[in-house]
């Protein structure tokens, strides 16, 4: 059995050498694949959504071959810095805290308001409630800061589940993500005023990868200039246009 294992490893290695010659420069884009409309898996199991379309267009403009990879949100930054992929494009807001570990491009969405989604018709006092949020998001940090009880979950779907099950009074997340749930489920609605967090969404790169980051930054600028980014923002309803 060990020889089989070694055999497959050797095969994988030699195959990877063979591939190296045929491609010039491949950039691996890491995303979560569980945060519609930004990124999600479509029925065929492929990454789709606003960021898929933006990312593909950026790669075309920067003349790079891109490969999409999904990764759990919890470990999305550690896997970037250890080199498992080259960029994060996962609805990640630009914050000072994250800037310390990775570098961002300019934002490709306007700062999106965060909303509280709870049971329709309830009266929520955000400071004295149990609020669900996804671990490691700006919303989770905000809930902890304002003194409410924070319930953290590792993926976005589970935060909604907590509200449905009555475990949490409300969930705090990006408005664009919550809107589809508020529209579809009559029991759920926005229950408090929106708040503005973060500096918009940007792509994350390793700090040592300045050259690649500049390529994508320039591509984002060109999409902003010719209005194609605005068209995608309107298509996927991810906040205000530029």
């Amino acid at each position, binding site marked *: 059995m060990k020889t089989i294992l070694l055999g497959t490893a050797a095969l994988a290695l030699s*195959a*990877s050498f063979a591939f*190296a010659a045929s491609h010039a420069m491949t950039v691996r884009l890491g995303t979560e694949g569980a945060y519609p409309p930004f990124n999600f*898996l479509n029925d065929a*199991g492929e990454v789709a959504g606003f960021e898929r379309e933006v990312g593909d267009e950026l790669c075309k403009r920067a003349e790079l071959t891109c490969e999409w990879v999904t990764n759990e949100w919890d470990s999305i930054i550690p896997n970037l810095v250890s080199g498992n992929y080259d960029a994060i494009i996962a609805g990640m807001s630009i914050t000072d805290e994250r800037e310390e570990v990775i570098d961002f491009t300019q934002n490709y969405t306007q700062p999106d308001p965060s909303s509280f989604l709870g049971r329709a018709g309830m009266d929520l006092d955000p400071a004295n409630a149990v609020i669900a949020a996804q671990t490691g998001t700006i919303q989770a940090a905000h809930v902890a800061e304002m003194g409410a009880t924070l319930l953290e979950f590792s993926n976005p779907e589970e935060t909604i589940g907590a509200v449905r099950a009555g475990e949490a009074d409300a969930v705090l997340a990006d408005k664009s993500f919550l809107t589809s749930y508020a529209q579809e489920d009559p029991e759920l609605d926005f229950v408090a005023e929106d708040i503005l967090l973060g500096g918009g969404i940007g792509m994350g790169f390793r*700090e040592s990868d300045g050259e690649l980051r500049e390529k994508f930054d320039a591509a984002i600028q060109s999409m902003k200039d010719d209005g194609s980014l605005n068209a995608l923002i309107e298509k996927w309803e991810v906040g205000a246009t530029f």
Partner: protein
Amino acid sequence: MSDLAWYACYLTTGKHLSFYASFGTVLLLLAITAPVALGFGFAGAMAARSHVFPLNWIGKAYIAIVRGVPDIAFFLFFVIALDQGFEWLRHQVKCPDWDQPIRQGSDFVVCDAAKLPLNASAQWIHETYGFLLAVLTFAIVFGAFAANVLYGAMRAVPRAQIETAEAYGMTHRQSFWRILVPQMWVYALPGLSNLWMVLIKATPLLFLLGVEDIVYWARELGGTKNPRFTDYPHGDWRMWYFLVLLVFYLVFTKVSEVVLDRVMARLTHGQATSGGEMQRKAA
């Protein structure tokens, strides 16, 4: 009828096919990991029993350290360290004239040729590599537990058996392979079958390594689907998907039990244990 058609289409989407394939991934992982882990365990137990000085310390340290570290810590940190270790080695060989530091702040930077797998490799190679890392990690973790079980089993073989072997003039090595090893399995099997059951249920740890296993897909498929993003909208169906997993795991453990019982009956045959005695009387 249209309901039936809807389900027929829904259950054959690309996503569902990935879900079905992930059952194969899990079974393949188990089929490779179990023997490799047993090999690690056997080597560990032999090392721990050895009379050669550094070897027995290495064996005992392996058993003690790996058993003591929580699985999740092992899977999060050890694998990244292992991956970086491989890349560091390749970096030393392939890019000797690289002048930048490998650690730049929190970044781990090796030259492009040293990346494992290469950046330009197809996605399936990355997935295979991740899978092999998973097999190796599982084998190291479960190998330590198996080593402890086998170490105990080797000591449980009655001393009189070894003495008889020595009286016949067998060397140390001969009595180990011909007398001790064939007889120890009956003592090891209950402990090993426990390990097997735990291993079956430990596969969701795969997702920490980026391998998409059955639990990942069940969670992804069962989550609420909004008509904006899919042709098959539905509510929160996670319960039904997890029910399928429950049935899968129950059937799988049941089959394992039946097989292990048979193996046990075979190994007990002619042994100086209470089970062997019962078989002798029944015959």
